[in-house]
């Protein structure tokens, strides 16, 4: 019980919500919002109570303080996502599907938790699918919008293709090692060509989840079409979970071919950061914009992984944490503005600061954090990522990444320019955002501002993390 606490709690609240939903009248479905959030908050808080580490189901499930930490990070993110979605859920056309929204998200979260804790590829695969398929339903959630349906299609089909390729890779892993348990596989990895092929197919499947170039093309379309909150969920939680397990698998299963995957990552990082940035430069739609920006960010995250050290692992987790706050901050603002005014393009944001200074400020902080500007948390995250990569001697790679930060700064500044510098004839009018949104944004801002200064967060992750050497 103790060991699987996260998953069990989530399952419990999912079931509770399911039951409550049944007893709610059709007109009062939105009443489930508050309980759902409170329950999630409770789970999040309980998650921080130290848990006993352990291995269950003969190694299929493993829980360490590290995975608990990762799950806590995800819980926190999901909590913020929930809080930010309230405004959207209260809209008329979504009222009747409120509880389904929570159910689906919670089930994907359960999937992610299992994925992170997985000790063999079967659990990993199931977690992965559980974390993907319901999101496709969520992406297509706004049935009255064509874009939403299109997003759903693109997500589910790309995901099917990618999981097919991933499975093919796994089948070859199985074929060459004879087992699916991580701990058994690891010593048997020897870098034979078929294993290289298997790894790359597996990698392609993961790259789809993390949206690395060239496996990223679905990202922007899905983010744009999906409801904002789903997009933000996809961009932070889903991606974050995938990064976590990807890192764990690389470090624990494929560590014998570290040289190989470092080289693969090397190429992919350059591609991802550069292409992501180049696309982000020209985006007008903010969701699309954030999509490409998150692609580039994913490339940066890989810099930590490529470091192969405990430092690298730590920075990856740390950066994801920071990234959750920053990206959710940005998405939160986009979300509330989209909900209230339906405006999503950058031109619409012209002069936003004059009418909605606080929202603009949150947006600015989030974007600056994403761009890695001190003293915001993003700066620390990026710096440590670069440190991790440089530690291994990848100076040229770091240089390329650094040059890319300039491009990324450019487009983040474009948004800030629209909000603060430009003036508009028809700016977005003043509106008062609701309590939930404000709480959500404040949480993000606190995260953005505080996480960097409090080194204890980093130290905590470091003490739990591990590296190849």
């Amino acid at each position, binding site marked *: 019980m103790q060991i699987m606490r996260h998953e069990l709690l989530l399952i419990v609240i999912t079931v509770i919500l399911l039951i409550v939903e049944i007893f709610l009248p059709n007109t009062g479905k939105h009443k489930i919002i508050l309980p759902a959030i409170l329950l999630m908050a409770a789970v999040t808080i309980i998650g921080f109570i130290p848990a006993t580490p352990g291995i269950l189901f003969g190694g299929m499930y493993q829980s360490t303080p590290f995975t608990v930490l990762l799950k806590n990070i995800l819980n926190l993110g999901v909590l913020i996502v929930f809080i930010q979605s309230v405004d959207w859920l209260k809209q008329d056309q979504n009222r009747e599907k409120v509880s389904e929204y929570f159910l689906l998200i919670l089930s994907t979260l359960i999937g992610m938790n299992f994925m992170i804790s997985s000790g063999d590829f*079967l659990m990993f695969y*199931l977690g992965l*699918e559980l974390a993907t398929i319901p999101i496709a339903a969520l992406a297509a959630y706004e049935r009255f919008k064509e874009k939403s349906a299109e*997003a*759903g299609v693109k997500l589910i*089909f790309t995901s*099917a293709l990618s999981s097919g390729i991933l499975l*093919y890779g796994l089948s070859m892993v*199985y*074929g060459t090692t004879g087992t699916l348990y991580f701990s058994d596989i690891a010593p048997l990895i020897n870098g034979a060509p078929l294993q290289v092929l298997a790894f790359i197919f597996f990698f392609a499947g993961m790259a789809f989840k993390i949206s690395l170039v060239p496996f990223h093309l679905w990202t922007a379309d899905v983010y744009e079409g999906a409801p904002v909150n789903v997009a933000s969920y996809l961009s932070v939680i889903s991606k974050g979970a995938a990064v976590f397990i990807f890192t764990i698998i690389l470090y624990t299963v494929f560590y014998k071919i570290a040289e190989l995957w470092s080289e693969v990552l090397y190429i992919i990082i350059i591609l991802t950061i550069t292409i992501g940035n180049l696309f982000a430069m020209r985006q007008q739609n903010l969701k699309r914009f954030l999509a490409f920006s998150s692609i580039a960010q994913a490339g940066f995250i890989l810099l930590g992984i490529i470091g192969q050290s405990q430092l690298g692992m730590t920075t990856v987790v740390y950066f994801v944490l920071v990234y959750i706050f920053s990206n959710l901050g940005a998405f939160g603002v986009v979300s509330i503005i989209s909900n209230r005014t339906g405006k999503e393009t950058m031109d619409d944001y012209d002069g936003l600061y004059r009418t909605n200074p606080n929202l603009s400020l949150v947006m600015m902080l989030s974007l600056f954090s994403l761009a890695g500007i001190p003293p915001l948390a993003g700066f620390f995250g990026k710096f440590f990522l670069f440190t991790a990569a440089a530690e291994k001697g990848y100076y040229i790679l770091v240089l390329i990444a650094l040059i890319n930060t300039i491009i990324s700064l450019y487009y983040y500044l474009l948004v800030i320019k629209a909000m603060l510098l430009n003036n508009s004839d028809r700016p977005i009018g003043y509106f008062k955002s609701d309590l939930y949104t404000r709480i959500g944004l404040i949480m993000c801002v606190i995260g953005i501002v505080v996480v960097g200064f409090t080194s204890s967060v980093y130290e905590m992750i470091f003490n739990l993390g591990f590296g190849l050497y």
Partner: protein
Amino acid sequence: MFEGVPLTWFLITGTIMFFIGIYGFLVRKNLITILMSTELILNSVNINFVAFNKILYPDHLEGMFFTIFIIAVAAAEASVAIAIIINIYRRLVNIDVEKMNEMKY
């Protein structure tokens, strides 16, 4: 030798099927046919798993169980995909994948 059938035969069959599925995925227009192609892909993987399990590692049933779960997941995936497809059909009255390009660049 599994009773006269080498492992690689299975693998090659599976691989060919895999790539045929991918080919279908890449060229078919109708969303449902694309869905069918993904089923081909998953099946090919299943053949691999099962063949490995039986011929090389018969001590445990890992491959077989993996296959079972893949089938289950495929069912779930198919159900959601079909729901989405039907949803689209209701909106657009066609399910041509090439028309799904409202969002680009």
